[in-house]
């Protein structure tokens, strides 16, 4: 991602009612944006709207994760790169994966501390493992931009920090919705606060303290 992304007129509707916006957001290359706000404020809607605009450019981790339950972790992760191979390659992989892909995906899973789950089907994973599978899929995608909606909500403290650290390191730019204020301040460069469907706060992370964000939750 070289040029800044200028997103105008973002609005979300639910049941014919406007629940978000219209609002504008500019994302500069290298920016790590944390979206904060109460549940129901419109964070998830905003993540979706951005994804609809940027399409293939971004790797997305939605709140529902979008895993294929019947497939093992390997294939769920591999799905991020289906576009890079021909159909035959993909179909063969479904039956018998190639070593190169297996090694690459094992590498990613090791960083997420779940290499041992490579062949477990997604249906049999715990909530935290499912979340990390979706994150692994986003990492395997190797996109410039990450869009994620509460990607570490089911992970315990140290693991949540480790994963957020990994995301910060591996993605040049990201927009991540987080309800945890401390995580938001630690891993972002910019905080965007949403309240009542509007942007109520937009500031550099190092200029903020937890107390500045708290009013958004009242």
């Amino acid at each position, binding site marked *: 991602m070289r040029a800044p992304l200028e997103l105008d007129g973002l609005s979300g509707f639910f049941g014919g009612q406007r629940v978000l916006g219209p609002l504008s957001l500019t994302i500069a290359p290298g920016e790590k944006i944390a979206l904060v706000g109460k549940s129901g404020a419109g964070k998830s809607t905003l993540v979706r709207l951005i994804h609809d605009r940027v*399409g*293939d450019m971004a790797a*997305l981790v*939605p709140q*529902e*994760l*979008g*895993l*294929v*339950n*019947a*497939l093992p972790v390997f*294939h769920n992760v591999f*799905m*991020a*790169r*289906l*576009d890079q*191979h*021909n*159909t035959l390659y*993909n*179909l063969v992989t*479904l039956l018998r994966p190639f070593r190169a892909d297996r090694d690459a995906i094992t590498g990613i899973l090791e960083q997420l501390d779940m290499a041992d789950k490579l062949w477990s089907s997604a249906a049999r994973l715990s909530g935290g493992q499912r979340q990390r599978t979706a994150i692994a*899929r986003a990492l395997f*995608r190797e996109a410039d931009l990450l869009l994620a909606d509460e990607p570490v909500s089911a992970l315990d403290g140290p693991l949540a920090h480790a994963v957020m650290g990994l995301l910060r390191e591996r993605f040049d730019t990201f927009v991540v919705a987080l309800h945890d204020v401390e995580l938001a301040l630690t891993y972002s460069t910019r905080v965007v606060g949403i309240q009542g469907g509007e942007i109520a706060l937009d500031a550099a992370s190092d200029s903020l303290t937890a107390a500045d964000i708290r009013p958004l939750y009242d």
Partner: protein
Amino acid sequence: MRGWASLPLSRSRTARTSIFFVVLALVCLAFSDIAVTTANPWQDLMRFFWGIVTPDFFSSAGLATAVLRTLAFAFVGVTIGSIAGFLLALVYRFRIVRTFSAFIRAIHEIFWALIFLQFFGFHPLTGVLAIAIPYSGIFAKVYSEILDEVDPEPRNLLHSRVGALSAFAYARIPDCWEQLRTYTSYRLECGFRSSAILGFVGLPTLGFYLESAFSQGHYSEAGAVLLLFYALIATIPLWVRPRMLPFYVLAAPFFLGDGMPIVWGNVKRFFTEDIVPAPLREGATGESFWPWLSELLVDQALPGIWNTLLLTQMALVATGVLALLAFPLISRHFGNRLSRTGGHVLLVVARSTPEYILAYILLQLWGPSMLPAVVALALHNGGIIGHLIGRQSSFITLRPDAPRGITRYGYELVPRVYPSFLAFLFYRWEIIMRETAILGILGIYTLGFYVDSAIQNIQFDKAMILILVTALLNIGIDILSRRIRKRLALQTMPTC
């Protein structure tokens, strides 16, 4: 009237619909022909049961071959049907595909067989296509319903350049694979039944021997055929294993037998001459077409439709009553282990016996009227629904101090299973009508009787129009049933 209106039952849509159907069935009963006409129905019935307990497996050398043919036709027919149905399911969103599928499944296997017999004759293709064609219509509908249920999110997350096939194989199929598999194997069981009854129109399957043995009063032979058939169905879990399946499918075509050679000129003749209405054929002036058509519709189609509807409505309600009475037999809230095992055996027998065979047997025993048909349809379909509801009721947990016996039945269980019971019943409405029409071939004056008569008179033009009428009637019931299920907010997965 005020007293009625304030009754809670009359306020519920579900109850009103149920009462309406029961009353309708009673009205039908008043118009219908219900009687036992044999002098000694019980004596014949006893002879039949005696035949079942003294089966003679060695009377006919062809029996083993018939088993093989029954399986082969089913495997090949269901395989082709599932592949074609799957392809249709992929484009099911187009109205033309939906209409086409509804049309081919509205025509019963036996009608298809009767059609193909006219130009392929006794060739394996007749049996295979008779199963494959209606089954592909059914598969198309059910597969598309299953595919539509799959979570769309994984598909949305894929890169937009991912090819359709890859996307389908990764994001769509895996999560519904189990359902597709279960439904297909269930359909295979239906395929064995369909294949067996094709024998009644002359194909070399089990029905052929059953009909011969029965019509000659050789009850021990008939008993043997029936027992073989039950054994085949009951042991399916033992011999139809996923690992063996490819082997069966590949081997089946070699066991279809040879029959008689196909003469392709006959195929052309059938479509360009035989089914063209007589007044429109070459050499005819065409002006007699409308009188010809209206005579056919008034003299045959209308009485056929009338009797088909009468029988269908009575059978539908009888099925419902039987299912409600039967489900406690296998529900864990009633009886003990022994009684439940007995209940299972009873329901397995009821639902494994095709309606056509049941109706045929009862017609032989009780003589011709609508009674044997109603009982046959109710036994088979009631067995299926009773089984499904009974199984479902076993998952219900009752409070420890729940009442017992009839109170438990009426207050605790029936209200809870009633919506799914109705869903299954309305789902089977269309299926009951398909069968009702077919039972005409056995001599009850439903549409099948007139179709069979036209074929016996070598008047395929009339037969085709009557089959068309049957199909339209079926599609109508299908639409009506879907409306009612929607109105009552009933949802269910399809059954056979």
